[in-house]
């Protein structure tokens, strides 16, 4: 999501599920929607069956998605930058990009500062001792009078983004792509020809991906390479186009938006950093800066309004103009505080307590054995869940001596989704309200009631005993009828925000102010619960498609509510040409009718005439006003570049001296622990992990029907390799990495097969993630699922930008047991 924000301005799926039916070509990378998102996949099939769309699936495994694709490409896991880079090269070399779009709606014409360079796998500014880049040279040359970026609309300037990009990707020839990815040259050329057609204004392609792109030390750049291709083809902002991230959990989107994430506050405001003393200093360091005269820079311009309104929502009367609206009450992290950092800190003895809710660290990993050690170094662990998890039970897991584990563990029984109301936000940003269907089971309590009650007790302790800086604890607003039992309806209203002078719910974030007279819990949700009521409850769907979807584009504007402001396709100003006419009249996003924009809710001022020379550029969230082919918001490079996974059987064919990402974060090394990486001599096979249709992470180990459908832990072994090793289908195998092992059944299959990479033959092993030592399967296993945790194998390293672990590419050995 970091990569989408760095390219377009917001970190979320740009279109939505139903919109995929509008595409002419669907590229699927790092995803298996037919099995992982089967009901969403109906819209892919509608595109194929109703409009003859082609589907191209690039994946290590041949899956049910591949089975209905027009082309299947067996690709080496983690090599998608080379695939997209090769497509970018093909489009640029053959002038197949969408010319008007690229010139006007992207930063192709922007001129980069002298001093930027890329040599032998390293961008300018590299500091080898710190393993970081100083990104000062990755910026635009500016006009000294205006401070705006210099542009050359002819795209000929040698330091224009366009020319630098052309040069950067010229190395990604079909032969190089093939050498890195393992895709045969002829197959790659066929794909390139199909993709090359999609730069025509009346054609549109979508790229769909999931965690198969994210879970790499190059994850951010894998996604950005697809995003850059989409900008070149003019496919962003359009129905049937976009960069569409398929998220894996019911409300992962909503709770990212609401910032259960160390680096942000609600609505993707950055967490303040040490040294910022005032709102002004915070905004100066955090908000995008206007870098073109026609850039609205909507986010940057309004940043302080969103921040102040959130501080007012949280701290009420204690947030005043003369105390910078209680800016000091917001914690300022010293450094990265993400998922792996939590366990890294625990291993160092610096983390005392951990609260887990609906998330089991012991299974999720990476490096489950190390995570289990980390849990054992905590003073206390609170697990809030409806069902036992591998974390609540870690202290007496098979092979663990419970008496030696000194962590105090609390198992707090919570209610299920069906026992409470509130909204779930799907991948496509549609926020759908749920009813409370059942009362809480037995003694279970709602998570938010548990948290509220605990907070009130902590507050009482501070009142009676005093302690460290109790001010924010005392001031935090609890404007609910019952402070220990807030209703989700009350919280939904708080999230939307109101005008403190009138007491009325706000209809739009455009009404937020930075003078302390408005509140919002999360500005991107302002408009979801207005004076008209809770718009997330709306239900005007396919029971009357003519009335509820008049354009036929699938917007269904009165079904639920989507952020921002109920826009269904983000950046939709880019769906129309400079005059405001849709690039393709049969698939309009928004259209200028002479006095206003009609169609989807415009991601643009509703009455701004596109013919006005002062009219804004289309990507209103970016300081440039345009989409970024070149971005200095990524700390591992302004252009995506292929790097090998941290564990790889080959040296990078592009630059063997800098093979893996030079800035991937090596947690163990940084903490003074030995890096536990394997090499191809000891661990010759590439492994990748994934999910099955019948299971959802780990919770479904408690669902009898699903356990019956997929009862047993297994790994998928390529047929040819199994023959070499004498492994028969169903036999037990040991799969080991430098960090741990699995002992499970072998599923011998031709869905996986050998690849030729950098002139070598390599095999890929497939590992479903769903099993562990808790659940119905483990209960019936003689070994109690002791060696079933897939993440016992995965490395404790992170992507430079997001610190996402490399779950999807690592080295293993396979032995018959």
């Amino acid at each position, binding site marked *: 999501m970091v990569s989408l924000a760095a390219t377009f301005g917001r970190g979320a799926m740009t279109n939505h*599920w139903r919109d995929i039916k509008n595409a002419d070509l669907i590229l699927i990378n790092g995803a298996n929607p037919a099995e992982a998102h089967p009901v969403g996949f109906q819209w892919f099939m509608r595109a194929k069956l109703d409009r003859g769309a082609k589907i191209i699936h690039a994946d290590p495994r041949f899956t049910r998605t591949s089975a209905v694709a027009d082309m299947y490409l067996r690709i080496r896991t983690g090599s998608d930058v080379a695939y997209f880079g090769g497509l970018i090269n093909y489009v640029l070399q053959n002038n197949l990009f969408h010319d008007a779009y690229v010139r006007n709606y992207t930063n192709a014409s922007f001129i980069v500062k002298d001093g930027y360079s890329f040599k032998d796998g390293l961008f300018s500014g590299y500091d080898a001792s710190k393993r970081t880049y100083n990104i000062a040279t990755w910026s635009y040359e500016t006009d000294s009078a205006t401070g705006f970026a210099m542009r050359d609309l002819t795209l000929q300037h040698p330091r224009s983004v366009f020319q630098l990009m052309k040069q950067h990707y010229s190395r990604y020839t079909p032969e190089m792509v093939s050498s890195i990815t393992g895709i045969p040259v002829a197959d790659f050329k066929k794909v390139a020809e199909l993709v090359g057609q999609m730069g025509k204004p009346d054609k549109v392609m979508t790229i769909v991906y999931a965690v198969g792109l994210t879970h790499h030390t190059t994850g951010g750049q894998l996604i950005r390479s697809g995003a850059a291709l989409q900008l070149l083809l003019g496919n962003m902002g359009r129905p049937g186009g976009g960069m569409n991230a398929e998220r894996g959990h019911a409300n992962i989107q909503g709770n990212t938006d609401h910032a*259960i994430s160390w680096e942000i506050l609600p609505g993707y405001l950055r967490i303040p950093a040490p040294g910022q003393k005032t709102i002004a200093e915070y905004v100066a360091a955090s908000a995008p800066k206007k870098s073109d005269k026609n850039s609205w820079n909507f986010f940057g311009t309004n940043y302080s309004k969103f921040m102040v309104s959130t501080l007012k929502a949280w701290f009420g009367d204690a947030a005043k103009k003369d105390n910078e609206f209680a800016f000091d009450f917001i914690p300022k992290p010293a450094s990265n505080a993400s998922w792996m950092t939590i366990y890294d800190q625990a291993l160092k003895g610096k983390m005392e307590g951990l609260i887990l809710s609906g998330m089991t660290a012991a299974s999720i990993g990476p490096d489950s054995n190390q995570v289990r050690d980390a849990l054992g170094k905590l003073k206390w662990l609170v697990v809030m869940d409806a069902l036992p998890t591998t974390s609540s039970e870690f202290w007496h897991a098979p092979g663990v001596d419970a008496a030696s584990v000194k962590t105090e563990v609390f198992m707090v029984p919570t209610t299920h989704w*069906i026992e409470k109301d509130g909204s779930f936000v799907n991948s496509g940003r549609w926020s759908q309200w749920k009813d409370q269907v059942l009362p809480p089971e037995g003694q279970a309590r709602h998570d938010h009631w548990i948290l509220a009650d605990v907070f009130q007790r902590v507050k009482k302790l501070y009142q009676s005993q005093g302690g460290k800086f109790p001010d924010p604890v005392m001031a935090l607003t609890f404007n609910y009828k019952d402070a220990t039992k807030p209703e989700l309806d009350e919280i939904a209203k708080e999230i939307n925000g109101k005008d403190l002078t009138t007491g009325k719910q706000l209809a739009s974030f455009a009404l937020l102010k930075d003078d302390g007279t408005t509140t919002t819990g999360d500005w991107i949700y302002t408009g979801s619960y207005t004076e008209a009521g809770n718009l997330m409850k709306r239900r005007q769907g396919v029971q009357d498609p003519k009335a509820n979807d008049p354009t036929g584009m699938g917007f269904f504007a009165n079904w639920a509510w989507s952020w921002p402001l109920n826009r269904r396709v983000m950046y939709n100003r880019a769906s129309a040409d400079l005059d405001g006419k849709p690039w393709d009249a049969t698939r309009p996003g928004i259209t200028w009718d002479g006095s206003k924009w009609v169609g989807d809710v415009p991601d643009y001022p509703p009455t701004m005439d596109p013919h006005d020379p002062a009219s804004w550029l289309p990507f209103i969230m970016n300081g440039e006003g345009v989409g970024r082919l070149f971005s200095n918001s990524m700390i591992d490079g302004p252009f995506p570049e292929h790097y090998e996974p941290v564990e790889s059987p080959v040296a990078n064919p592009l630059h063997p001296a800098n093979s893996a990402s030079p800035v991937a974060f090596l947690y163990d090394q940084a903490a003074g622990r030995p890096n536990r990486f394997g090499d191809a001599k000891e661990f010759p096979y590439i492994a990748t992990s994934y999910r099955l249709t019948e299971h959802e992470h780990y919770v479904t180990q408690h669902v009898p029907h699903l356990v019956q459908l997929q009862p047993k832990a297994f790994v998928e072994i390529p047929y040819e390799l199994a023959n070499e090793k004498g492994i028969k289908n169903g036999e037990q195998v040991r799969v080991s990495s430098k960090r741990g092992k699995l002992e499970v059944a072998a599923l011998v299959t031709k869905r996986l097969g050998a690849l030729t990479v950098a002139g070598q033959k390599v095999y890929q092993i497939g590992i479903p993630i769903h099993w562990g030592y808790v659940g119905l399967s483990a209960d019936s296993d003689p070994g109690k699922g002791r060696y079933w945790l897939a993440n016992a194998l995965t490395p404790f390293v992170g992507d430079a930008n997001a610190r996402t672990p490399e779950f999807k590419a690592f080295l293993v050995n396979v032995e018959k047991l």
Partner: protein
Amino acid sequence: MGVAGAGALAASGLGFDDALAKSTQIKQKLRIEGAKELHSVCPYCAVGCSLVAYTRAKSNGTTELLQIEGDPDSPVNEGRLCPKGATAMQLAVSPRRVESPLYRAAGATRWQKMSWDEMLDKIAKNIKSSRDATFVTTDGNGNTVNRTEGIAFAGGAAFSSEEGYFATKLMRGLGLVHLEQQARV
């Protein structure tokens, strides 16, 4: 089967299938007749399939969940569900639920039941103690940072959005910097 049904049987070459479909429909109708119809969303992946749930109040005061099915009006799924969504009832009502708060003391080899009041008190004391022990008011450069370094919160992909927002607000209110959820991993 009435006369109309028999007529339909006679008119159709594959009458038995039609009859079976019809009787399934009737059975389905009886199953949910008089039930309360409520709306929900599938708890699994992020397609966000809309659900219809049927419940009936029983004479003993409890609520019985009769059925969960895909919502035919939804533009997201048009009534369809995958194997996970289709078995959502077995997640909703499960004999495997944790029945009461459970506590495991340091070094203990088994769980012990605990009252809610005692458990919430203990958790609150732990939070206060760890917050006070690891709170940093001012960093080495003299900057006001007001952060709790020694407590982490992770989770929320199964929360309603409003619960997630509330968790963020409370944890930031306590000064937490280690705040994470499923999006990272």
